[in-house]
């Protein structure tokens, strides 16, 4: 009843091309963002901010990056964990070797390095497609796992191989408490998500989608596959790299190469599939789902097991969560290949007509 677009006439093309052409959507999104910035820091507990909001937001950013590549450009990657690692270690290198650089700049430079490596590993995509490419991206994953674990220069020769993030100084503001960390991450993620949305609705986004839907036809109407694919790899790796730097600096604080193993790649890919291929909003939903469900299962499964007289130890719980994730992936691919984002838009369609569907 309240969700009506009747009477909202668009008289300019720019109004019609807005991200949220419907007034109620605009208001709702503004309210959510305002709430996230102004309300959340006061009502949420430290645990909630530290263990749920911050990692979810960072994973969402990484998922946006991966979605640009997989969902928009159609190039499957199983190596996003490696690009998070590249962002993290590159940012670390800048931070400790060029200490004059502001921290935010180091983090962004981490993203830039990741983008450049992304271009290099994107070159095979010009010749190969689909599963072949997926396997090729595994090369990136395993190579960088090894590189950061074995070559001392990247960890500044710490004997344990574990790395501590420098103090988080952002232009004089020291990011310390959970609330500050949350606000810092939220700000970065909001800005980058907006940029991503602009890219995918702009003409480079259309080029990516054209390549995804039918690469031959795209080339014939004059899209250069090289430019389109490599730009997707670059932009995607940039986002993933920045997310990796944030993950390491803000969420983990100190980390080992294991933090960016192939499991992280799968986690991101699943977040993208469950959230919705080709949807920026879906990345947030998918990341939240992938981060919160295991926490929920950890808490909920043992008592549930007790109910049927089954004592579950920690390993069993994690194996059981594996099963549930696997099942959910298949379920989503079968029932709703477009993920949570599509369910959301279907809900909106219904809401549009509610309560008088005829």
């Amino acid at each position: 009843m309240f969700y009506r677009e009747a009477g909202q006439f668009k008289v300019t093309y720019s109004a019609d091309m807005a991200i949220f052409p419907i007034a109620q959507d605009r208001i709702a999104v503004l309210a959510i963002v305002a709430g996230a910035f102004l309300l959340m820091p006061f009502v949420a507990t430290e645990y909630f901010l530290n263990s749920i909001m911050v990692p979810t937001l960072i994973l969402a950013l990484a998922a946006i990056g991966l979605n640009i590549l997989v969902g928009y450009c159609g190039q499957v990657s199983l190596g996003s964990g490696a690009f998070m690692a590249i962002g993290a270690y590159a940012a670390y290198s800048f931070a400790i070797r060029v200490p004059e650089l502001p921290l935010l700049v180091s983090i962004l430079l981490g993203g830039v390095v990741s983008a450049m490596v992304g271009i290099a590993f994107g070159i095979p995509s010009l010749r190969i497609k689909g599963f072949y490419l997926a396997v090729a991206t595994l090369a990136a994953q395993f190579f960088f796992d090894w590189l950061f674990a074995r070559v001392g220069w990247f960890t500044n020769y710490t004997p344990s191989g574990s790395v501590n993030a420098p103090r988080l100084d952002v232009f004089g503001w020291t990011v310390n408490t959970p609330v500050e960390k949350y606000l810092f991450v939220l700000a970065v993620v909001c800005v980058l998500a907006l940029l991503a949305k602009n890219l995918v609705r702009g003409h480079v986004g259309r080029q990516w989608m054209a390549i995804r839907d039918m690469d031959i036809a795209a080339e014939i109407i004059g899209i250069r596959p090289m430019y389109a694919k490599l730009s997707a790899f670059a932009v995607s790796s940039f986002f993933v790299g920045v997310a990796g730097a944030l993950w390491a600096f803000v969420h983990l604080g100190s980390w080992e190469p294991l933090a960016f193993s192939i499991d992280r790649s799968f986690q991101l890919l699943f977040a993208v599939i469950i959230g919705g291929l080709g949807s920026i909003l879906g990345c947030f939903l998918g990341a939240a789902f992938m981060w919160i469900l295991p926490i929920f299962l950890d808490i909920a499964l043992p008592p549930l097991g007790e109910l049927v007289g089954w004592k579950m130890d920690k390993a069993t719980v994690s194996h059981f969560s594996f099963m549930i994730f696997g099942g959910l992936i298949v379920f989503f691919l079968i029932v709703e290949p477009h993920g949570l984002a599509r369910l959301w838009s279907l809900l909106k369609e219904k809401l549009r007509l509610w309560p008088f569907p005829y």
Partner: protein
Amino acid sequence: MTVRVRSFPDVLLSVENISLSFGGVKALTDISFDIRKGEIRAIIGPNGAGKSSMLNCINGFYHPQQGAITYKGVRRSQMRPHEAAEQGIARTFQNIALFKGMSTLDNIMTGRNLRMKTGLLWQALHLGPARREEIEHRREVERIIDFLEIQHIRKTPVGRLPYGLQKRVELGRALAAQPELLLLDEPMAGMNIEEKQDMCRFVLDVNDEFGTTICLIEHDMGVVMDISDRVVVLDYGKKIGDGQPDEIKKNEAVISAYLGVSH
């Protein structure tokens, strides 16, 4: 319809002695013909005659082993498809090749991609030049949408559209590039009579209003004879006839190829 006889002095594209083979299979053998500026040129022939291969050679998707193509006075034996597009050659496909996950509007907007120049950063900010460019091209695209009478499906994903409309959107995407040479691969295949009439009207209007040169493949002889200025006939990869529709109708070789007289 009346048979139009028009004359076209300037050669836009000429094909010289093109041969193309896949492994041992000869798809095209020593084909030569030309397309003149402003005309509607048809390529006809039985299935498997090499018509689509011919179009694929013209827009650079296949590279013929022998021969050369001269386009706007530049002679070349090879080019990439996107180079052809940059030179003003656009096309549609026999099996619709739209971007199925995108809306009608976005599909046609991709047709403008060669004319959109702003860099990644401006696009990411969606300000200034990027925004202006987007709006300017949107205006052009809306003109094409009006022309093809597909306003109502502007925001529909093309995968959901019926066949006839998809063909129309595909034509729209090709037109959005404002091509000098438009290649249409069976634009009317699988259409009912009304859809065919609409499509004929669009083809003629494009040719008249924008002066676009058109080269089309079509099986419906009625349509071909009515709308085209000159016709090339291929059979088994060889050229067996070339001329105005009236001459083609009387051509012995063509008649035998179509009537199935044994070779």
